[in-house]
């Protein structure tokens, strides 16, 4: 009995000690949670504004909870401002671009990493030299080339131009990964009678799955959010706008429909945020790759 209470007292004090020792951390965390709440405030405000009516929007001030939920803002953005169509365009452009970029970077990185051939050094050199080419620099010839190929004002042209942007870092990630894969695996595949393409597609590419995920996720986000190229490719074709260009056009057409515009913003941003929440790991890996290499 006596010993039991003593043990309990020791347990209690040690727990209290642990609590007090952890207390500064919890205070720090609470402070950071406040900072993070301020950080994401614009998004919270955007969602809140997209559910208010325009009257409340202009008088409501800081009240984040709408007095009544006006879902018709979303209907207006979806139909009248054509965001349904823009969303489909964006999905098509993004998915096709991700497939093209991933395949071309994987095959390119693979060949450069595993084979020495005439011109491989020059190829690599040119790639590295163009690591940071800004869109503002290349945009005029890109548009000219697309005009001459008859690809301007079309989704196909937009997709090709987006897939042709540098993406050197994606090639380099694949390059680094394929360089490390043991030679025996390849030889085993060859012994089993697999040719060049079979070896790549059924042995090497599946092995590079984590890299593929990283490259695909980063390309997805870059393409979904791209603005400059889709803008110049849809000047005379409003029906092929992506969401980012559509938003700019929405403001130009009806500058006062804030609630409709914030609803359009939520429609456009929600897919990438959901993707981020589920595939966070690959984002972080892709971005930190730049520092490690």
């Amino acid at each position, binding site marked *: 009995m006596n010993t039991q209470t003593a043990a309990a007292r020791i347990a209690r004090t040690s727990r209290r000690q642990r609590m007090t020792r952890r207390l500064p951390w*919890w205070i720090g*965390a609470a402070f*950071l*949670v406040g900072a*993070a*709440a301020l*950080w*994401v405030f*614009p998004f919270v*405000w955007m969602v809140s504004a997209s559910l208010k009516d325009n009257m409340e*929007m*202009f008088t409501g*001030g*800081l009240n984040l909870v709408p007095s009544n939920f006006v879902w018709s803002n979303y209907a207006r953005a979806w139909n009248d401002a054509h965001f349904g169509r823009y969303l489909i365009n964006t999905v098509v452009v993004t998915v096709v671009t991700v497939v*093209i970029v991933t395949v071309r970077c994987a095959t*390119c990185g693979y060949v450069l990493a*595993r084979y*020495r051939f005439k011109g491989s050094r020059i*190829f690599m050199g*040119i790639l590295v030299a*163009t*690591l*940071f080419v*800004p*869109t*503002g*620099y*290349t*945009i*005029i*010839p890109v548009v000219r*080339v697309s005009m001459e190929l008859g690809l301007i004002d079309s989704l196909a042209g937009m997709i*090709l131009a987006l*897939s042709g*942007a540098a993406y050197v870092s994606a090639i380099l990630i694949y390059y680094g990964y394929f360089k*490390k894969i*043991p*030679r*025996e695996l390849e030889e085993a595949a060859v012994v089993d009678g697999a040719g*060049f*393409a079979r070896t790549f597609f059924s042995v090497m590419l599946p092995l590079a799955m984590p890299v593929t995920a990283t490259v695909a996720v980063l390309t997805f986000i870059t393409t979904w959010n791209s*603005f*400059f190229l889709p803008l110049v490719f849809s*000047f005379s074709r409003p029906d092929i706008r992506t*969401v*980012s260009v559509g*938003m*700019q056009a929405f*403001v130009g057409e009806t500058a006062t429909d804030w609630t409709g*515009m*914030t609803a359009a913003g939520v429609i*456009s941003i929600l897919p*990438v945020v959901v*993707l981020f929440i589920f595939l*966070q790991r690959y984002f*972080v890996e892709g*971005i*930190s790759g*730049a*520092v490690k290499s």
Partner: protein
Amino acid sequence: MTIRSGPFTRRESKRATRASTVDEHVPSGRGWKRTTWIWIFLLPTMVLYGVYTIYPIIASYWYSLVEWNGFDADQRFVGLQNYQQVLRDPFFLNSFKITLLFMLLVVPARVLLSLLLAIVLNSPKLPLVGVLRSAFFIPVVTTTAIIGVVMRFVLDPATGPINSVVQAFGMEGIDFLGNQNTVLPTAAVLYVWKFFGVTMIYWLAALQTIPHEIYEAARIDGANVRQIFFHITLPLLKPFLIIITVLTIEETFHNFDLMYTLTGGGPYFHTEIIEIYIYRWAFAASIPQLGHASAAAVLFGLLVAIVGAIQLWGVYAARRMRRSNP
């Protein structure tokens, strides 16, 4: 048998490790079949990258030497006249100045503030670390062009939420984006907010290269938090500081999306970065001046290339630094 297998397997495994990394004598295109496959694999990149990146880089130089409105086939060679005009244009010099000024405003904030946050978020004892990291990172993944538009509402002088707070304190609403003095700092703050997460992830990756044993050893030796920070963390991060700073500088050159949707370069050209200047001459003008715009683009490309060259030198220096204090 077990006795014999010992050295044998060791030698065997040694040979295996030697063979496992790709050695210097990679088969150099044995047979035409392999060579053909190699070029088939390179083809998609060669075509797309060639047409949409390499060709434009070269073509820009040609375009910058002609007078051309983009509609006619007629291109008149004018030599360096476009460059003379661009360099004499006060609006180009203005955009050049604003691009550099913007860089000076955002790079220190992004690099240093995110370092502080990364150090805090790197500590294993902090609760809710995962949630906090995600919250600070989330602006990065959202569409910049849409954020630019929404922020115009958030910053609205009359009814935006920020000015509602300002007015609640009895002050007059601030026209953040309409005032020539506040617009660039405001855009800088928004830019830092939007891309802060990228630099934070850079720093977290850098911090994770420091092994935990070093910290433990220092703590056992009686070092306090400040000593650990100034004598262990900071010196080990120094090489990364160079790499991260230059990566961040390069990223600030890609700022068309935010500036164009937030301010459109205004009010009265006070936020017209070079990319908007190029856009204005090439696409927004009623008679496009592709030669003039290309000359500006080439000069912009040179600026980026110079910074890129400094970067390569910096990375080289950083590598040497890392090698000398392992």
